């Protein structure tokens, strides 16, 4: 039959966060739903603007970015949480023996240039009664964790499912301090599946079909980690295969985790994070979280 052409733009180069999309594509879930899906690589500026402008109906983003975007009236909406909990955190080589925020004193943090990272660190250290002024923070731009820690840098903010697993593969043990463990308000959704308000208003059926098929893809990745990894590798042949396999094994159980169904988002998570930002003067306007996300397109489990 006739199928709708839809595009989805990623947030980064393809990785295990995206396995469900590739699985849905490979297993024909999209086709079954009458969708002809094309996965598009992002550019430097990420997916939000492109989705908001209507050039692409769907994209991958994060709750942190989306919160900022919403308060600037950018009409993007989160329609599914790809991973239930925030798997990012601060990592340091085990040899440096940095285990608690207190240990950050006198150390050097290598940032990637986000507006919040220093505030997060400050909050963490002040909570642990450590002296934030004793932390040195430099932006390391494009340098990755492994490069940065070779020179002057003591710890970085990483996603465990990717960089952390690579460290395991390299047998370079690291100490990880997850954001979610430090403060539950920082257990925000990252990444999330997004669309724009026009789509929701004009093509709710397409959105519903897309989310349903995507959910099936992630379900497949949850149930068949090994096969899902191979699907991703097949779709993106130049990818780091060992890393994908190991990462997939670690990440598959994390997609749904303790949630009743894959993709479920809780208002408290959205409000908590926005409140935390507001407390730390990082948000100019309050967030209307009801407009920022919706569970309405998720399939009944």
């Amino acid at each position: 039959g006739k199928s709708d052409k839809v595009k989805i733009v990623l947030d980064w180069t393809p990785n295990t966060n995206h396995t469900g999309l590739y699985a849905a594509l490979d297993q024909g879930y999209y086709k079954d739903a009458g969708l002809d899906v094309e996965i598009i690589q992002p550019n430097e500026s990420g997916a939000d603007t492109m989705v908001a402008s209507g050039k692409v109906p769907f994209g991958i983003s994060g709750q942190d970015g989306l919160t900022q975007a919403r308060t600037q009236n950018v009409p993007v909406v989160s329609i599914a949480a790809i991973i239930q909990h925030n798997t990012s955190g601060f990592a340091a080589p085990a040899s440096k023996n940095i285990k608690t925020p207190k240990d950050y004193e006198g150390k050097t943090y290598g940032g990637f240039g986000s507006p919040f990272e220093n505030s997060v660190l400050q909050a963490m250290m002040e909570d642990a009664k450590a002296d934030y002024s004793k932390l040195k923070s430099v932006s390391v731009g494009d340098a990755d964790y492994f490069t940065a820690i070779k020179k002057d840098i003591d710890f970085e903010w990483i996603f465990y499912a990717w960089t952390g697993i690579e460290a395991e593969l390299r047998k370079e043990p690291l100490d990880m301090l997850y954001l979610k463990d430090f403060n539950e308000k920082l257990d925000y959704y990252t990444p999330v599946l997004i669309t724009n308000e026009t789509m929701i208003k004009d093509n709710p059926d397409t959105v519903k079909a897309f989310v349903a098929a995507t959910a099936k893809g992630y379900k497949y990745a949850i149930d068949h980690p090994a096969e899902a990894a191979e699907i991703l590798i097949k779709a993106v042949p130049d990818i780091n295969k060992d890393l994908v396999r190991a990462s997939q094994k670690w990440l598959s159980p994390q997609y749904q985790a303790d949630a009743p169904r894959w993709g479920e988002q809780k208002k408290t998570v959205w409000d908590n994070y926005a409140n935390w930002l507001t407390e730390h003067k990082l948000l100019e306007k309050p967030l209307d979280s009801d407009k920022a996300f919706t569970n309405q397109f998720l399939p009944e489990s």
Partner: protein
Amino acid sequence: MISSKWFKAAWPPIMVVFLLLVVWQLAVVIFNIELWILPDPISIIQEGIHNFRSLWMHTVATIKLTLIGFAIGIVIGVGVAWLLHLIPGFKKGFYPILVLTQNIPMIALAPLLMIWFGFGVLPKIIVISIVVFFPIAVALMDGFLQTDQVMLNYMKMIGATRLQIFRKLELPHALPSFFSGLKISATYAVSGAMISEWLSSDKGIGYYMKQQKAGFKTDRVFDSIFIIVLLSIILFYSIVILESIVIRWKSRSHKWN
């Protein structure tokens, strides 16, 4: 005969590059630098050979993109230089616009280009052309201005039209400047293609490199760099050879005795 001449011209740079690679290889071995920080040339080349098919596919994509963008950039560069030189007042008015085109950061331009021109090949070619046309236009305009006054007077007096003066005097006189600009542009053309591949692409060396970087495959990142540098150097020396074919009348001997 010819091959020996080419060989004589080619061996000094090849020697230098070869020496550089040897030093690099030794440095990596001696200082025991880990592979994912700075891989050694041998590993890089091995990985490149191992991964040849995929690399080749991406390289071809980049070459195509580069050549199209370069060609269009040259046309635009010559055209802009010509218009700004020929039409009185244009140069004064539009020079700042030229400068401006070189200074809009990609990070800001990229989303706009995609919104306006979609995901096809068009926005990418636009990016390369923007990078390429500028040095050509600037060098050419300066070249036009350096036209010999006595020859110019002669052409005017015998009644040459503005266009004849341009074609028969200013253009050939500015050829060395043009090639100067062309050489600078050629160097940037491949980098321009890299940048343009950031605008959503699923092939090309720029894409490949980004992906390998994300996968912490430093040796493959360096494979891409090798290819980029190689392409640029080939493009650059094509221009140099073209220059030596086109500008035959130069009497200047490069030797110093």
